[in-house]
């Protein structure tokens, strides 16, 4: 038991260090700006006095390490400063959008993960039949398709032609859960189709791998049905890599929502990030970038920790 906890502690320490390095990088990225932030925002027409005043307001007159720690401290307290574009506090701007993004990612995960694992298991069960081949061809092409292509095809068919779902997913707090789900149906479906392929391929590959081991041979010789072998004997042993790929895909989902949010004009964090990048609203970019990065690092960490816990062979390793 000691082994696992020390491995997990080590991995968590590494994750924590990564987040610190990332926060330094995000901070330094702005430092690397030619001139400084104040000049960049005010443009060339600004008088030296206004630049100086603005610099004071942004606390640019303090040395870098002091500013880094005060920025990080504020960030940890949930105070992200003010947006440059409209002067509003960023915390309010981000909170609601972050919950929207997480809502979209979570709804997608609820649909995509069980479906992908089921299809992957079926493909392993009916290996080398037309079903398996269909699955592998469609996953190969799903990897090659840009997200917005899938999104617009879905809009053209399901929204414009059939009128089933709205092509713009605006959601607000007054809507009931049912209305919200109806609203995010298309982005959810797009993300499902895009993320399905990876989990499905991994599930198929690991199960086929496990099926070649001696204990499965044994089960087969006992005369157990193929479907039962896969569900009761192969699946539990394939669980560790599958959990790993599922959590990694969740990490992908949280980041991959950016494009899909823009297609469906969904009020999420990704949309905010893209808007802020084009407006060069750097405090907002820093804050939302750091949130995305932390979520991503955390989910990657979770994937590793779960893989350690779920894999009996890793447990005995020193």
């Amino acid at each position, binding site marked *: 038991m000691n082994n696992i906890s020390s491995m997990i502690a080590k991995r968590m320490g590494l994750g924590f260090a990564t987040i610190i390095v*990332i926060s330094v990088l995000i901070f330094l990225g702005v430092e690397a700006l030619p001139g400084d932030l104040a000049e960049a925002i005010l443009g060339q027409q600004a008088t030296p006095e206004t630049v100086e005043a603005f610099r004071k307001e942004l606390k640019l007159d303090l040395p870098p390490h002091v500013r880094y720690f005060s920025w990080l401290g504020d960030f940890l307290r949930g105070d992200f400063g003010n947006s440059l574009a409209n002067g509003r506090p960023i915390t309010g701007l981000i909170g609601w959008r972050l919950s929207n993004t997480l809502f979209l990612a979570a709804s997608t995960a609820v649909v995509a993960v069980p479906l992908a694992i089921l299809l992957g298991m079926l493909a392993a069960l009916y290996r080398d039949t037309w079903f398996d081949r269909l699955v592998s061809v469609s996953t190969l092409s799903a990897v*090659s398709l840009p997200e917005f292509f899938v999104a617009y095809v879905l809009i053209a068919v399901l929204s414009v032609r059939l009128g089933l779902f709205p092509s713009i997913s605006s959601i607000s707090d007054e809507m009931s859960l049912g209305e919200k789900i109806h609203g995010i149906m298309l982005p959810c479906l797009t993300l499902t189709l895009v993320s399905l392929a990876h989990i499905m391929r991994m599930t198929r590959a690991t199960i086929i791998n496990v099926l070649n081991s001696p204990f499965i041979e044994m089960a087969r010789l006992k005369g157990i049905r193929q479907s039962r072998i896969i569900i009761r004997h192969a699946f539990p042993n394939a669980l560790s890599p599958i959990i790993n790929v599922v959590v990694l895909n969740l990490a992908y989902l949280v980041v991959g929502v950016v494009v899909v949010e823009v297609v469906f004009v969904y009020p999420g964090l990704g949309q905010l990030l893209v808007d802020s990048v084009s407006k060069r609203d750097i405090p907002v970019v820093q804050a939302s970038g750091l949130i995305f990065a932390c979520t991503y690092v955390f989910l990657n960490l979770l994937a590793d920790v779960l893989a350690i816990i779920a894999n009996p062979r890793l447990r005995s390793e020193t």
Partner: protein
Amino acid sequence: MTFLRLLKKSPFSARVGLGMILLNIFAAVFAPYIAPHAETEIVGDVWMTSGEDHVLGTDHLGRDMFTRLIYGARNTITIAMLITLISFTVGIILGFLAAVLGGWADQVFSRVVDIMMAFPTLIFALMVLSVLGTSVPVLIVVIALLDSTRVYRISRALAMDIEVMEFVEAARLRGEGIWWIITQEILPNAMPPLIAEFGLRFCFVFLFISALSFLGLGIQPPTADWGGMVRENSGAITFGILTPLWPAAAIAFLTIGVNLMADWFLQRSGRIRQEQE
């Protein structure tokens, strides 16, 4: 000639892939001769549907869609190719150096790459672009460096395997320098999997710039670019006009073609495709 002989034994899917790639390259190279109009010429009304004058209709400013698609092939493929080439040059050199030198060089390179890969690529790119602004040179350097981390990982792993073989040992004893060992001993032996990887990386880069352009942060108008064209024409879809689907389908067409070829190369080089990203 050897390539032609190889092609004879290739599976059907690889030939289809090759055909799809050649079609794109043809369009890219001979763009000014094939295209019926000039790149930014306004030839009709906004969002005209396809007719005999305009095979694929017109875009949001009344430019010929077919012309824009052909020029888009030229612009987007050139930039993606350039990025992939830079990323491979940097990634392979650093990866091979790390494997051959070992020690602190390996440690330093690998830890830097670990940190860069812990950061989601799209978010990293967006943050850098917000600071440096979007221009084509910045775009090329940023994406190439981000992508070279993946190339570094794979070429380091390949070189590690080759580096312990007898012929490398022999070259060392002969007193050959590091550069000789990298270019003459390791590189030729690492070539087949690297070519397959090149295809996959090209697809990834291509999709990545298309996504950035689609977000309005990549290649800027009026340059024809497939991702940007989807963005510009996205409004048409709600009227049931399929204009934005053409450039999106063109992106899918090219990446599927490259993937089919890369898949064949992977099988030939006898390696199972690594699950990554």
